[in-house]
């Protein structure tokens, strides 16, 4: 009886969570992004970039190579998948469903187990789509027409499926740590993700290092003239005509790879188990409320209105009437205040540290590392810009004020751009003093681009996640010298390509999208 109840509870928790996710507009967008990524990650031979390149060699586009390429890159879209499933517990808190669940007999472990199944199932749909896209892209871009489904799809099973399980478990583990802010979780995972992707890392969570080790061994065995170089992730290589061809005949598999995958799946499951020990089961009294600010009054002490047993009268006509006087400056100032309010001390310390670093560190570090990271740490301030009215259910009365489209939205965009520009001031001044006007222009465009992207994607998708994913990937791209993602003009190659002009054009498009989306919101709430 008890077992039946447990199984039933887990099943229904998983089912409800799964249905809630897959019926959301955001999930459709995630599938669209997945299709786009798959299209990008299997580039045409003359694309000028490679996702998996091997120094002076390139892989021959057969089933084994395309399957391996997709599987090796799984950790890169693992970041997107994390953001897709990282709020299953938080959503139950936000909707109040958690309060109801907490009054049932379901245990913390059963609840989390149900959520884990849901997370994993959602990610399996992504894997299924990836499998379909892998086959489609093979037919589209393969150098041979001979399809070997085993070689094409088995790497997904060996590398990607466990990676998705680990992502699902990690997301749930973070989610179950009550009291951690979503912002902190997102940033913590991003840093952890960079660590996990590091090729020098001994912690080979995604099986990436063991897979690459096996691949390198195969290349070296077959081609002694291989120069040992390789790049995983978007790498700019120019023309691939001069590269020699390496043919991977079989999939990459070894006992150490299999052991690695099983070990990390077990560890991640263990994390979920430990999460159930600290999960507060929606007891909001255990969540720390931000310490109450006490402000001293300088004026005379006011007497509360209710100070006697007779109901006092609100004297409306005694309340002074203010004259209408609109000011963009005032609105931008209060928008800045709204953006920066309630941030943690940790955020302040990190932001201050990076700001100071951008003043005093060598220019190369300040521009390529400190500034992107400093802006990245504003992700939560910025990501809410397009969604906060609806998220906080203020939209009805804000959108019913006069001229919401020409007053509030431009002020929000301007406020965020001002904050970004102020943060970039040290680097901006330093490049200006060195006479690099292009960089000043690129930084200014970037300061407008980020809020425009946040507002447009927030308004169009109703969620801040799309922006968080794109912004994170772009910052990661800059840190890894990928010119296509350089929205601040920090990478030389991007300057040669004139990326800032493209970013400006994209920003203009995003602003148009934001305004038309908001107009629709105002008219059809």
């Amino acid at each position, binding site marked *: 009886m008890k077992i039946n109840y447990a199984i039933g509870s887990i099943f229904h928790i998983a089912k409800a969570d799964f249905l809630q996710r897959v019926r959301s507009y955001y999930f459709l967008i995630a599938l669209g992004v997945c299709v786009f990524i798959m299209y990008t990650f299997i580039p045409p031979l003359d694309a000028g970039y490679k996702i998996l390149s091997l120094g002076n060699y390139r892989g021959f586009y057969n089933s084994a190579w395309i399957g391996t390429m997709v599987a090796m890159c799984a950790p890169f879209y693992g970041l997107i998948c994390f953001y897709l499933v990282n709020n299953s517990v938080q959503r139950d808190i936000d909707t109040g469903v958690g309060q109801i669940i907490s009054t049932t007999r379901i245990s913390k472990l059963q609840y989390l187990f149900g959520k884990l199944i849901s997370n994993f199932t959602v990610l399996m749909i992504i894997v299924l789509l990836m499998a379909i896209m892998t086959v489609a892209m093979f037919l589209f871009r393969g150098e041979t027409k001979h399809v070997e489904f085993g070689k094409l799809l088995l790497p997904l099973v060996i590398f990607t499926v466990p990676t998705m399980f680990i992502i699902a478990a990690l997301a749930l583990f973070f989610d179950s740590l009550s009291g951690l802010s979503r912002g902190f979780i997102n940033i913590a995972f991003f840093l952890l993700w960079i660590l996990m992707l590091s090729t020098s890392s001994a912690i080979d969570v995604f099986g990436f290092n063991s897979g690459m080790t096996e691949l390198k061994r195969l290349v070296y065995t077959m081609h002694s003239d291989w120069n040992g170089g390789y790049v995983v992730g978007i790498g700019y290589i120019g023309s691939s005509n001069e590269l020699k061809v390496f043919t991977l005949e079989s999939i990459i598999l070894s006992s150490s790879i299999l052991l690695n995958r099983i070990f990390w799946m077990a560890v991640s499951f263990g994390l979920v188990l430990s999460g159930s020990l600290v999960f507060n089961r929606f007891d909001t009294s255990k969540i720390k409320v931000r310490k109450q*600010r006490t402000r001293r009054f300088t004026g005379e002490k006011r007497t509360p209105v209710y100070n006697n047993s007779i*109901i006092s009268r*609100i004297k409306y006509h005694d309340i002074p009437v*203010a004259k209408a*006087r609109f000011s963009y400056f005032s609105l931008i100032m*209060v928008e800045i205040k709204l953006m920066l309010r309630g941030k943690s001390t940790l955020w302040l310390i990190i932001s201050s540290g990076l700001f100071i670093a951008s003043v005093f560190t060598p220019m190369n570090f300040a521009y390529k590392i400190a500034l992107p990271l400093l802006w990245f740490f504003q992700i939560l301030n910025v990501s809410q810009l397009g969604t906060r009215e609806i998220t906080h259910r203020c939209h*009805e009365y804000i959108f*019913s004020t*006069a001229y919401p489209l020409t007053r509030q939205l431009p002020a929000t965009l301007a406020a965020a751009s001002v904050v970004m520009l102020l943060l970039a001031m040290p680097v901006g001044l330093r490049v200006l003093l060195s006479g690099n006007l292009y960089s000043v222009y690129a930084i200014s465009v970037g300061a407008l681009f980020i809020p425009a992207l946040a507002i447009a994607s927030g308004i169009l998708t109703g969620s801040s996640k799309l922006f968080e994913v794109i912004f994170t990937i772009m910052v990661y791209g800059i840190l890894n010298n990928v010119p296509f993602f350089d929205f601040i003009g920090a990478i030389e190659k991007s300057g040669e390509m004139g990326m800032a002009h493209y970013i400006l054009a994209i920003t203009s498009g995003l602003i148009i999208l934001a305004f038309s989306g908001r107009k629709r919101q105002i008219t059809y709430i």
Partner: protein
Amino acid sequence: MEISIKGLSKKYKGNKYGLKNFDLELKNGILGLIGPNGAGKSTLMRILATISKPSEGLITFNGIDIVKSPDNVRKVLGYLPQDFGIYPNLTAVEFLIYMAAIKGYTGKGIKMRIEALLEELNLIDVRDRPIGTYSGGMKQRIGIAQVLLGDPKLLILDEPTVGLDPEERVRFRNMLMELSGERIVILSSHIVSDIETIANDVAIVYQGRLLEHNSQSTVLKTVENQVYETILTNEEFDSFRMQYTISNSMRKNDGWAVRFTLNDGEKMTERPVQPVTGTLEDAYLRAILSAKRGEKYEN
């Protein structure tokens, strides 16, 4: 100031109507909107607040079409939605300054008004606390304060007394009465006594249609000499309930004390009854029940 609504309809997907062929004329004063859940009250208020567009019909505010020129209304509007939130990290003062700036009010004058509003709404002691730490009633009062920021000429208040304690409710009702003279106030509430206390006019809405719009005294006349009280045994109660519109019942030692309304032309002869003065709640229940029976309002 006047609002004119003619042939207003709001159609949703699946050929469902939130409002259907709705006509209403409003002048200065308080209009109480009452109706069951899903009747269309909030739909009407959202259209009047310019955040939703009608499918058909014309709404004018002082002769100007509000769909074509929404900002004409928005400049003088104070709107309190039924289910609203507030930025939790801001303090009351910060939030009201933010809302004032959006509404086009800046400077010393608005700061003084905010202080006075907070004082009158009994929030002055918590003015510097993040709103996230407020109780439901306090948040509701912040919502009311944001409505009053610009001294609005049109107030649309959807369930404004939700979450207010009895004392706050009385104070709020008194304030509405005080400010209603030169303004249009449209107020919806499930608490019929709130409407009864303050509204000049009453509109009863049911399934997207306007059943009744009249002055409160005229609406009350529909139940004049038709509301009675009687005592029933437990056995009698069930059959009586099927026959008459019971607006209130109270369990007693010897059975039930029941307040009920007779239908038009009906007389009660089989038991002793005590005539009582009809209330708005009696009139409302009678109108809704009549509509349900299809006696008066055919679809």
